[in-house]
């Protein structure tokens, strides 16, 4: 019992005291990690955005070529030039347009635009976050 009490007293005396500036060091470390993560995301989304931007040219070129080759533009021109005559055959005209639509190229084009816009949005978000963290310190 005496040993127990003396051990208890000894442990109570050994109270942990943190070193000076520990909390500041922790906060600085957290900020550093956050800035690194922001910088990584910024480079990643910027690269993705630039790649998608450069992909615009070949993808849209292929899209316009396919539109011309598939005959979609010819069927569409019929709708504009003979609209009143073709009202009766609207179903066949609509099916001709749908069948000649180059679906794959349209989906690819929209996909590239979507990737570019999402990348741009995230890049701007990272820039704003980076500006929020610049100069921030433990107050």
């Amino acid at each position, binding site marked *: 019992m005496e040993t127990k009490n003396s051990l208890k007293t000894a442990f109570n005396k050994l109270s942990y005291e943190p070193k000076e500036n520990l909390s500041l060091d922790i906060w600085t470390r957290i900020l550093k990690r956050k800035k690194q993560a922001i910088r990584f995301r910024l480079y990643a989304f910027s690269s993705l955005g630039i790649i998608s931007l450069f992909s615009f040219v070949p993808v849209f070129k292929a899209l316009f070529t396919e539109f011309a080759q598939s005959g979609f533009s010819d069927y569409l021109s019929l709708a504009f030039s003979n609209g009143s005559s073709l009202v009766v055959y609207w179903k*066949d005209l609509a099916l*001709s347009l749908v069948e000649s639509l180059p679906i794959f190229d349209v989906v690819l084009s929209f996909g590239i635009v979507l990737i570019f816009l999402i990348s741009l949005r995230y890049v701007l978000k990272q820039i704003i976050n980076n500006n929020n963290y610049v100069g921030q310190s433990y107050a």
Partner: protein
Amino acid sequence: MKKINEKLKKVFESKFLVKILYGIGLIVIILISFSAGVSVGFHRASFGRAWGDNYVRNFGITLEPPIFPKDNFPNAHGAIGKIIKIELPNVIVADRDNTERVIVVNNDTKIEKIRNNITSGDLKIDDFIVVIGSPNEQGQIEAKFIRVIPSPDSLLNNPQTK
């Protein structure tokens, strides 16, 4: 009663319900798109099958078997190309996807050239036409509307005629 109203209001204004509604809407849109794709694909495949099965009857015996265009099925409700043979009421067109199509011209078919209505007798070989019609079981397209347009080749050679 007031408590029930408040609870109902809480449920209908909750973000969870909004997300569920968006999810259901998205599923509906996906299902409609999928069924539209299936329907169009079915029509094209049916026409492609009829076109292949009746190839010899429509175009005669050839040494090489008929080859489908690059995306496998020809368009079932229209054709664009140059007339290569006229055997009324059938007109054979070389389509842009390098396949031959039999266009059936009947009394109801409306044929236009520039702004004038013409008859099937006015069609000539090498005329470039755009056809809107319906497929039949013989792999032919029953034309409802035909427009004779300048050939793209002639436009490229003589751009001033545009």
